[in-house]
Structure formats: structure tokens, C-alpha cells
């Protein structure tokens, strides 16, 4: 169980169906099942083409639509003269869709209220210790306990020191994202038409921090439309190049 897949903006099969019905300007009470089923299946095909895994729930509704479609082919007007009509095979779906639409509307209402709610600020509960005089915690310990605690403290300290002896703590001056972005920009400004493999941009390949920093810097530059990147397959090489924006700026200089 990994991640959540979001199909465009559709929150689920009902969301998609409601969209299709509204888009086709159909009455929800009179859904043209064959038309909607066709559109729905087309959409699912599209998903498959794009290699987006379609959630099982979408399949379930597709199956239901096809079932209704086949039932619609059967004569529904019962023979007796009262004109009593047997139940429309669509009514269950219509009811579900109506219910879903209602909650979708409620969700919109909540969204509006959320907007308003975020404009109201509250204060956290104040720390009253200063006034109530409970600020200092008095330890109720006898001498023995106190000595034991102190010994434990010394012991811990000794241990930490031992570890420190064996492991040298190195602290490198960490490069900032701004600096790295400047480096990368510089790289491409020198030769705007060159493309580079992502790894070429990393300065210390065995330093995870450096790799991550370079990666996020590239993403940031892409966001700002200075770079483009391409990866032809999963975990494949990432090719990076300068966009026209970057080239333009390089030429200006």
C-alpha cells in the first residue's frame, strides 16, 4: 500500500460520472445510459493509455453502468392497462448520484467556511506558571536518590565521552540551496546549449545531502522555468538543459 493516485480532479467514480452527466447537460433524472457509459469507458481507456492505474472502484461503476445499459434494453412497461411501469434500472444509480452530489455541495460549503475560519485567529492557552508560582518544580528526593541520580548523570556523561573519542564528529560547512542554484545557473550560463546529466551537477556524489540539495535546487530552477529535465524511464538518467528563459538571460550578459 503505497501512495494515493489522483485521477485528474476526480475524487472517485461518482465524481467522474457526475462530471460527465453535467458536461453532457443531461438531466440527472434521465441519464442517457448508453451515451454516458460510452464516455465513461472512453475516459477509462484514456487512463489506461496514459498508464495511470485505474482504481478498482472505477471498474466497479463501469460494470454497474454496463449492467444498467443491458437492463435498459429489456421492455420496462408492464403489460397491465394501468400503465404501471416496472422500476427504472437507473433509479438506484440516480439516488446514489444525488446523494453524492449533495455531499459534494456540502463539501463546497465547508470549503467556504474553512476560508473564513482561517481568517480568524486565536491565542494558545497562556502559561500561567509565572502567576501561580508553580514555575519551579521542587524535587522531593532524599539524599540517597539524589546521589544516585547524580551518579547516573556522571555515568551517562562518561559514556558520551567514550563515544566521542571513537567517532570524530565532522561538521562541514553546508552549502545552501541558494548557493547551489547559483552554481547550476552558472554552469548553464557558460554553455547555454549544452545539456547535462543530473549527476554531472552534483559536486560530492557520495554525500547524500549534496545529492538531495542538488536535486531540490534543480527542481526549484525548473519551477522558475530556468531549466527543463527529462527522464525517459523510472530511475533512469535525468537529462537537464537550459530553457529559453535561461538562455535569454545568458545572452543578455
Amino acid at each position, binding site marked *: 500500500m503505497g501512495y494515493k493516485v489522483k485521477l485528474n480532479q476526480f475524487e472517485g*467514480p461518482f465524481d467522474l460520472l457526475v462530471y460527465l452527466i453535467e458536461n453532457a447537460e443531461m438531466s440527472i433524472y*434521465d441519464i442517457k445510459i448508453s451515451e454516458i457509459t460510452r464516455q465513461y469507458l472512453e475516459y477509462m481507456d484514456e487512463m489506461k493509455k496514459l498508464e495511470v492505474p485505474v482504481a478498482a472502484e472505477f471498474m466497479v461503476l463501469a460494470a454497474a453502468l454496463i449492467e444498467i445499459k443491458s437492463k435498459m434494453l429489456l421492455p420496462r412497461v408492464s403489460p397491465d392497462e394501468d400503465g404501471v411501469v416496472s422500476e427504472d434500472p*437507473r433509479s438506484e444509480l440516480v439516488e446514489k448520484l444525488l446523494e453524492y452530489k449533495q455531499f459534494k455541495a456540502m463539501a463546497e460549503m465547508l470549503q467556504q467556511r474553512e476560508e473564513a475560519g482561517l*481568517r480568524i485567529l486565536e491565542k494558545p*492557552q497562556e502559561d500561567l506558571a509565572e502567576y501561580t508560582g508553580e514555575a519551579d518544580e521542587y524535587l522531593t528526593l532524599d539524599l540517597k536518590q539524589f546521589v544516585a541520580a547524580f551518579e547516573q548523570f556522571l555515568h551517562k556523561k562518561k559514556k558520551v565521552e567514550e563515544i566521542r573519542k571513537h567517532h570524530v564528529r565532522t561538521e562541514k560547512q553546508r552549502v545552501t540551496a541558494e548557493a547551489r542554484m547559483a552554481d547550476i545557473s552558472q554552469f548553464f550560463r557558460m554553455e547555454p546549449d549544452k545539456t547535462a546529466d543530473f549527476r554531472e551537477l552534483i559536486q560530492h556524489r557520495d554525500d547524500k545531502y549534496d545529492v538531495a540539495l542538488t536535486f531540490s535546487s534543480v527542481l526549484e530552477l525548473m519551477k522558475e522555468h530556468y531549466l527543463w529535465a527529462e527522464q525517459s524511464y523510472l530511475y533512469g538518467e535525468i537529462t537537464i538543459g537550459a530553457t529559453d528563459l535561461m538562455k535569454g538571460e545568458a545572452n543578455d550578459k
Partner: protein
Amino acid sequence: MTSKKTIKAAFESMMFVWGQPLDVKEAAEIFNINWKDAYEYFKELQAEYEQEGRGIRIREINKSFQFVTAEENIEYIERLCTPVKHKRLSQSALEVLAIVAYKQPVTKGEIEAVRGIKCDRVIEGLQKKELVAEVGRSTAIGRPILYGTTDVFLKYFGFENLKDLPDIGNLDSLTVPEGPEDSLDLQQITIELPEE
């Protein structure tokens, strides 16, 4: 017996210090008065702040009251400092919340039936945000967990209590008319039998 004016003033001070919603019953106990009277006083205070258009307002959440800023002043507050921007809830989270709010106590299965899609992750996320909580177990097979909304939910969306939620019927003109199935069929007959 302490005068009403004194009590009201004291409530103001208490709310100021307390910050978070102050429970009416707790406040009433301090003065040994009926909680309904205390509630009345809080309501009066709330109205006074409102009428005078003060920059501080009193918000009610489930029989608790707290001082908050007036909504329209957010611009100025933001100019003074940059309050933490809250991430807005996702569309799916809002949908699930709407269903929980109106159908509570409700099981995961019931929520999923309305949305037609699995909701485990969304519910988990809402629980983490404390907008939704487990409120018990259904007696149905498997005794599934029942979910309900919390006071955080009320606060977040600015509802005083659950009765404050707008009527579901008023929101959507598409509510099923009386005798839904009958009228559905009636409409369908006319269309299913073309003139030709």
C-alpha cells in the same frame, strides 16, 4: 451573591487568560451559579462585542467560549506579522468531512458507499488533524468503528454546535422530491415513449 456585571467582567478576564475555549460549566462553578445563567452572560458578552464592532470577538464552540480576532482584521494582522499559513483541506477530505458531519455516527463503509471509493487514508488524515474521531462501535457485523466530528471541527469551520450546520436540503435544489421513485418514473415515461 456577586453581581451580574462583576461576573461578566470576570468571564472576560478568564477568557483572556484561558485563550482556548472556556467551558461554560467550569466558569459557572467558580461563581456557584447555574450554568444556564452563565451561558446567558457569555452570550450577552458575545453580542456586545459584535454590536460594538470590536477587533476581538467571542466565539462559541459547543458551550465553550473563547476570544478570537475579528475575521475582517486578518489583513492587518498579516501585515504586522506572518501567522502560520494553514494548509487547506483537500477536496476528498472535505467530502469525507461533510459525510461524517451529516451522517454521524457513521462507519467507514457508509462513507465509502456515498463516495464510491475507498477512504481509509482520508479518514486517517482527518483523525490526525483531530477533525474526526472514533465515537464508538456499530452493532453491525464486525462491529465497525463509528466516526463523528470533534470540537476541533466546529472550531475550524466556525460552527457553534452541530445544530448550526446548514440544513442539507437547503443547499442543493436537487434534493429528491416527494416520493422519489414515483416521480422519477413519471419523468421517465414521458421520455421513454417518443412521439414518432
